[in-house]
């Protein structure tokens, strides 16, 4: 198969040219941010850095980092770098303590993001003859909108399914001969199982490729999905803060994701010291967005731990590759594709009058994440009749769903029965680790 690219000029650009381009864009972006965002200006002033000190990517390390906490603090408009009238869209992550991160997009930002997704679709073998079924959630979540836009840019026939309603997904997939499926890997696995239950074989569908991301998954899971759907499964990575999916994507080599370096500079740092590490070393991934107008981030700490590689790729793309995240440097969990922080769970418990003594148990059963929370019941809620307790569980589950966007299973346990610990409490038991999933 001949190598195909959505934007060959950028995607196969020689390294020296990429770096030259990054340097030019960085100088411009730093000035844009400094001039238009007070929050950034204050951060830079505090570090004693002026835009004139930044001559190219070799000066990147002089800039301060920005963290998720900054984004929350600046909510909603504090990091906006353009007039609101220039913005055409927002997207948002689920947030702690009711404070979300909202990212703004100008039309230019949307186009750039959609082009990144289009590159991923073409890298997975897509073109204008394909029927692209987008089964990521549509809405504030970037998954649906990103791949939808990318599919348009490629010229695929786009099926804007959003997530859920699996019977309908399968009906459209079969009736309209979908060739590319975009969704979370766990949903892809679920669709595969449902096809099997319906007596459909992998060769009965026309799918050839899947673009799966937004949650951690393993090579074993890739293998299962590829087998059950009869496709090649490609990984895609991104963050709402930077645009959404498509910051990096896999090519047919399926060996790491190419970072769209014409739009993003990737660094690996030591998460403890902030020191920049050489390519090939494991550390926290840090991104600088070079082209975002409305919500540009310089040196944004992703908390994802991974390794970068400059090794030449047979696909012809020159963009640096990153491994799947090998873990996280904070306590965020990704459950069913949704970011969940223990602090969010704590907030709900306190709001509902429970002690913040709890235990989260995450596992993956039949390729789907399970999410259980043990909570100590209030003494007065105990009665000799079980329905009194199960009603409390349902109420708490609804409150959790409202905060987290996904439904945990709540188990009320006896007061004072969850072990207290002196130091750092073991709040999270992530059994997915036993499956080799890097959570």
């Amino acid at each position, binding site marked *: 198969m001949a190598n195909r690219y959505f934007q060959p000029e950028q995607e196969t650009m020689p390294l020296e040219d990429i770096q030259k381009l990054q340097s030019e864009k960085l100088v411009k972006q730093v000035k844009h941010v400094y001039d238009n965002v007070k929050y950034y200006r204050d951060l830079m002033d505090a570090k004693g850095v002026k835009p004139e000190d930044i001559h190219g990517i070799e000066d990147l390390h002089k800039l301060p980092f920005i963290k998720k906490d900054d984004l929350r603090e600046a909510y909603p408009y504090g990091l906006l770098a353009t007039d609101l009238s220039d913005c055409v869209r927002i997207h948002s992550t689920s947030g702690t303590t009711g404070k979300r991160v909202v990212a703004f997009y100008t039309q230019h930002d949307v186009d750039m993001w959609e082009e990144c997704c289009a590159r991923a679709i073409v890298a997975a073998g897509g073109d204008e003859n394909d029927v692209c079924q987008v089964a990521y959630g549509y809405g504030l979540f970037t998954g649906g909108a990103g791949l939808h836009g990318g599919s348009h840019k490629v010229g695929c026939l786009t099926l804007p399914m959003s997530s859920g309603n699996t019977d309908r997904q399968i009906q459209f997939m079969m009736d309209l001969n979908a060739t590319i499926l975009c969704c979370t890997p766990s949903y892809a696995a679920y669709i595969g199982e449902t096809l099997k239950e319906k007596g459909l074989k992998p060769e009965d569908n026309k799918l050839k490729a899947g673009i799966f991301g937004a949650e951690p998954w393993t090579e074993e899971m890739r293998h299962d999905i590829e087998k059950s759907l009869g496709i090649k499964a490609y990984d895609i990575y991104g963050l709402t803060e930077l645009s959404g999916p498509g910051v990096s994507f896999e090519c047919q080599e399926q060996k790491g994701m190419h970072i769209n370096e014409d739009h993003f500079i990737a660094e690996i740092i030591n998460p403890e010291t902030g020191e920049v590490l050489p390519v090939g070393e494991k550390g926290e991934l840090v991104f600088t967005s070079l082209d975002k107008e409305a919500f540009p981030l310089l040196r944004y700490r992703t908390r994802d731990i991974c390794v970068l590689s400059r090794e030449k790729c047979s696909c012809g793309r020159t963009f640096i590759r990153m491994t799947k995240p090998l873990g996280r440097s904070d306590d965020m969990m990704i459950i069913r594709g949704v970011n969940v922080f223990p602090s969010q769970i704590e907030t709900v418990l306190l709001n509902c009058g429970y002690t913040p003594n709890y235990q989260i148990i995450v596992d993956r059963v039949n390729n789907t994440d399970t999410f259980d929370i043990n909570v100590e*019941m209030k003494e007065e809620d*105990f*009665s*000799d*009749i*079980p329905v009194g*307790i*199960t009603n409390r569980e349902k109420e708490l589950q609804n409150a959790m769903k409202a905060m987290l966007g996904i439904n945990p299973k709540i*188990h*009320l*346990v*006896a*007061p004072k*029965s969850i072990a207290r610990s002196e130091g750092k409490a073991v709040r999270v038991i992530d059994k997915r680790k036993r499956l080799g999933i890097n959570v």
Partner: protein
Amino acid sequence: MAINQLSIFVENKEGKLVTITDSIANAGIDIRALSVADTQDFGIFRLIVTDPQKAKEALESSGCFVSITQVVGVSIPDEPGSLAKIVNILARYNINIEYMYAFIAVSGKEASVVLRVEDNNAAEKILIENGVKLLEEKDIIAL
């Protein structure tokens, strides 16, 4: 008049039941009757014992979560139709039974029934008016 029942929260976990039965045994307390309500995750043990207060303390000191629930105890002849009779009386007065369980004393002539209703006083009054013999704490010990 009402009698005290121990209601014990039992997580569906290995060894939980042993803790309960052991601590009651070690405290030298007799179990007169028991019933269990269970869900997928947990059960609620309901016990009628010879010394509810002492049993509660013993259970709590071994880490159990216990509360005392007031229930109505009645004594009925051990013969066909006697349970139907009380259930009918309560139904006639619109008193809902949340749950009930029964046991037969050693003598074999009488059966005891434990009733959990919303309003103990109202239920007791109606049962007495209809000639039903109620059980007291001392009757339980004497059984």
